[in-house]
């Protein structure tokens, strides 16, 4: 199993991570961040496999991935 930590302040809302995740573990937040973007957050009731496709495509290096 895995876990991601999203630095929402860095997120630009490109949503490339949403497309990259095969587990639909990332969704769009409904609160703007300080850059006036809707950042992403973890989607409830979904799992992370620590693959780490989302972090690989993130242009802001805003996602960290952990594996246990």
């Amino acid at each position, binding site marked *: 199993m895995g876990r991601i930590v999203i630095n929402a302040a860095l997120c630009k809302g490109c949503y490339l991570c949403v497309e990259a995740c095969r587990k639909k573990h990332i969704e769009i937040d409904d609160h703007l961040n300080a850059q006036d973007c809707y950042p992403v957050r973890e989607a409830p009731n979904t799992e992370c496999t620590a693959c780490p*496709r989302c972090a690989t*495509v993130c*242009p802001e290096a805003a996602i960290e991935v*952990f594996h246990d």
Partner: protein
Amino acid sequence: METNVFKRPQALTDTPTHYCPGCGHGVAHRLVAEAIDHFGLREHTVGVASAGCSVMMYKYFDVDTIEAAHGRALAVATGIKRTHPELTVFTYQGDGDLASIGLAETMHAANRGEKVCVIFINNAVYGMTGGQMAPTTLLGMKTSTTPTGRSLHREGSPLKMAELLSKLDGVAFCQRVSLHDPDQVYEAREAIFRAFEAQLEGLGFSFVEVLSACGTNMRMKPSDAQKWVANQMCQAYPLGVFKDDEA
């Protein structure tokens, strides 16, 4: 025990970038930073930035960085590497910078076999100045200076820098990669690592051409711009290793 399998590289600062959402520059920066971390070069690296959207990369890399005049990054890199051969030197240049105004510097530095790494961002346009045609713009592609599409007879065909440079004796490593999906990013990381390794081994000039999305000037949302790179750019610019002196 929990392990961190993906973390923000130490060679990046915490500063948010000014890049547009989904811009390939951010991913390319991170891959270079990963290479710097991997080889333990943070205190021994000088980056040379170019004029273009990446002009402020000194804010994002936690290594010494110098800003070259438009097109002159490889002249500056030559000076640094020749006076400080113990340093690792890389240039980071767009296609307007490297393949247009800086073409002479690029060809001669490569031909001299300067022992530096070049990260060449091919996004098919002049991004920073508003999406004008670059030497790398695809045939038929509309830009602000080719409103009816680039024409073979008027503007010539796209310049294939990786193919051109791989023919020069001074070039030790030359590969073209893309950033349009996770698997391609993994490949790009390998290529950038190999380019740094070639410099550390003193083999010669190393060049990585990175196909990169500029959704803003393509008037596309980030995911569509990635698909455009996958379908259009990868066809015009075949991916692969064009030269590897070590292999």
